[in-house]
């Protein structure tokens, strides 16, 4: 009996907590449904008599939102692909081989997280300008794929560490080369971690603003965050549009997170220690 009461208690607590957690997210949706000027209102209601989908209509029909979306998808897709390929290969090397410099590489991966990212912007820019990669997706993609990389490599390495060596040994004896043992046997087994890596790479590029702002100058190349920010002029923001844009930008990430939350628990191995 007491067990049931306890469960009920916990359940109701979780319901309340979840609602509180979701409120800010719902709040944006509420704003996106109001007119530009009604965002300063004392009403807590998300849907009011003034609410309408007008901002969404404007967003899709009167702005370049669809172009930005297409651009963002393109960039994020390539970044995700590159991120997964790079993280999975180098994570594998770090997990399986005891080569000279391995420890140094692992520690420096962690160290890259310690330097304030804002100070990296100026050198990024200089480098890209020297390579003539300003105003091109290539420059953006290189930066995006690499910034999420240290974490993704750690993450992949952590996962590989949990896979017994015997698996690829068996594959090699079965006739695989080192590389095909990796691609044919280890990668399929690492699917949960790959999914997580893909998710992080995607997130790193999908909603990034600061780097995109220095690399991309042609409005035709704008990604979503850049476009979104252009609704927000220094002294006048089109709040309704901005919020509607924010909602739409968040949707793909939400969908990914929600559909992959199963993998998040099993695949996130930042903490795994090789035993």
């Amino acid at each position, binding site marked *: 009996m007491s067990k049931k009461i306890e*469960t009920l208690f*916990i*359940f109701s*607590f979780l319901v309340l907590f*979840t609602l509180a957690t*979701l409120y*800010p*997210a719902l*709040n944006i949706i509420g704003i996106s449904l109001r007119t*530009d*000027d*009604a*965002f*300063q209102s*004392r009403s*807590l209601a998300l849907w009011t008599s003034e609410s309408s989908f007008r901002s969404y209509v404007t967003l899709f029909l009167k702005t370049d939102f669809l172009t930005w979306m297409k651009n963002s998808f393109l960039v994020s897709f390539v970044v995700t692909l590159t991120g997964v390929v*790079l993280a999975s*290969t*180098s994570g594998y*090397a*770090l997990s399986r*081989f005891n*080569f*000279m*410099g391995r420890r140094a590489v692992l520690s*420096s991966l*962690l*160290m890259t997280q*310690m*330097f*304030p990212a*804002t*100070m*990296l912007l*100026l*050198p990024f*820019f*200089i480098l*890209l*300008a020297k390579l003539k990669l*300003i105003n091109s997706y290539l420059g953006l993609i290189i930066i995006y794929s690499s910034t999420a990389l240290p974490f993704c*490599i750690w993450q992949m390495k952590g996962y590989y560490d949990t896979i017994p060596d015997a698996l690829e040994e068996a594959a090699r004896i079965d006739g695989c080369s080192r590389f095909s043992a990796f691609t044919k046997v280890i990668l399929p087994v690492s699917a949960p971690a790959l999914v997580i890596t893909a998710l992080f790479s995607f997130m790193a590029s*999908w*909603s990034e603003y600061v780097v995109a702002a220095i690399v991309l*100058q042609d409005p035709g190349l704008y990604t979503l*965050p850049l476009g979104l920010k*252009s609704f927000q002029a*220094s*002294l006048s923001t*089109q709040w309704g549009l901005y919020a509607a844009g924010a909602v739409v930008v*968040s949707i793909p990430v*939400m969908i*990914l*997170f929600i559909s992959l*939350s199963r993998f*998040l*628990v099993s695949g*996130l191995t*930042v903490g795994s*220690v090789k035993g």
Partner: protein
Amino acid sequence: MLYENRKALREVCDKYEESHPDIKIELTYRETEELRSNFQSSAIGGSGPDLIYGPSDQVGPFAVMGIIQSLDELFPSSFFDQFLSNAVVRFQEKTWMVGDGVGNHLMLMFNKELISTPPESTDELIQMGKSLTKDLNGDGIIDQYGLVWNFTEPFFYVPWIGGFGDWFINDDGSPNLNTKSNENAFAFIKSLRDEHRIIPKECDYETANALFKTGRAAMIINGDWSWGDYRDKVDFGIAALPMVSSTGDFPTPLVSTKGYSINVHTTGEQLSHTIDLMTYLTSPEVQLHYVRRLNVQPSSLAALAHPNVQSNSLLNQNADIIKKGRPMPVVPELRAIWDALRGEYQSVLAGTKDPHAAAVESQRKAIDQIKTMNVVIEPGVQGKFIKGLLFLFIAALGIVFWIKKKIYLRSFQENKFAYLMLLPAFLGIMSVIIFPFGYNLIISLSNFSLRTFKHWEIIGFHHFASVLTDGGFYSLFGKTIIWTVVNVSFHVSLGVFLAVLINRTLPAKRTFRTLLIIPWALPQYIAALTWRGMFNQEYGSINLILNQLLNMSPIQWLSQPVEAFSACIITNIWLGFPFMMVVALGGLQSIPKEMYEASQVDGASRWQQFWNITLPMIKPVMIPAVILGTIWTFNNINVVWLVSNGGEPSDLTHILVSYVYKAAFNLYRYGYAAALSMIIFLILSMFTVVFMRRSKLDTVV
């Protein structure tokens, strides 16, 4: 730049492209602050747009950095004579910018439905304000304000200093803040809020704008740029800022121009095209188009003489208001003065300083900041020594490599596969992280700043010394530690707590898990801005909820230092707990059920089980996550910057990284900022090493 203005600009550019089929104009838009920092970065990289359009106050810094060209050699002097003199921006005896309109000045706008004639003096203003600040529905909350404006910003404040007699800046660019006028102006604004209560307690630009547009404010102080926005929504009139009754003087709004400058890297044929385009964009024809579309006060004499302008009553009225203003200074020092003034002014408004102390302090700070901004440390012996040391270090690396090349070569051959697998990622990380890191290391040893923008040299450890001897660093460091510790402990405890709850047999547990991840999934900048909105004193949901549920009086979340810092922390806790929850869930799943059963047989309570089984078992997963979380939190600039709007109030909500950002991009102190980043890096490295040692986890690597 407003959306409408951008559209108008595109229109005239399209027209130009029509008549010049071989030329294509690419427009790229940035907000003022970003325009500045992005253009600086691109100038160092040797690129960037040919033509830069922006407010005149950016001329000073750009000219000092040498990233825009002087226009005197490019245009005949007769060209400049076509414009009003304050549209031709000169600095240090040279011309740098030509404006396509003048204005950008503040004025009083009033809702004609509520006010027939605008107040002419501050006494009238207060009186009218009092009668128009009303609680319409009698619920004890004010629904309509007499006056609103973004009063916490210096730009919106300095006209009043003029109204009380003095001006805030001297002709040589030095600050003039320690004046009776400044004190009186401080006290005046504070009295509007606290004594006469005709303005809201917290009011940023967005709030003021929205209140005025929806008829919930009778008057607003705003600039000419907002006309287009209000035109269809409010029937408004414009007037000069009311005369200060005690002095009989009118407040003096800053009048500036927005105009075009030319990138120093633009040369040759591109340059002549650029000159041609600039001539077109400032021509009477284009300016008249703007008059029609946007009601911009033209800068071209020919346009001003045009009947369309002569007969435009709004513009005529505006011209009178402009006469009461003073030109916007273009010196780079302005930024330091704004900065010093903003902080002290916000302290007065927060009630932590009296006007006199604030006036004294703002003057001292401004002088101080100008000094640090302008100082050029000459490379002395130490600089040479460091240079030599760097050279030796590189040489030593080379020699070591040469001596050990056989070992390296063998290692490479033995593990060729591993090295090849690592190579692509290594190259990426090398270019994107390690190169910039090295670059910063060099910069931190150099005198890179506003005045040495293009010719910096290595000077040694000056910046490190000045960071470490500055008391401010330690208080920032203290705040950063509080920020990190509070955040991470909440992330972990909340995360573990929720994970333990969710991990039980519970209906809909997967739904909970999914929904609770959402804060993590939401893009950070969107989340931070949303939270900022929710913290608004009068209209934010947080105060509304606190009021409705707990009947609490509204908290001034964003204008009081402790509250604002708490607001940042609350936001970040919300953003960060899902990560820890997910990691903890992963850890919990690896605990065998038998352990709990065994402990139950041994008679352990829930609590004992948690302490003796759950915690030790998830510790190995949690510790690396805690290390990462700590590093991320320590270096998380987004939340602090966006929620506190860049350190408000009075730069008291900064943590180390946001201060780095400010030093580098607001105050042009790149060398100093780089040294500070290196110190942050060292602090975090030490933390990680110590933490790993203490938790016996150096095996992780």
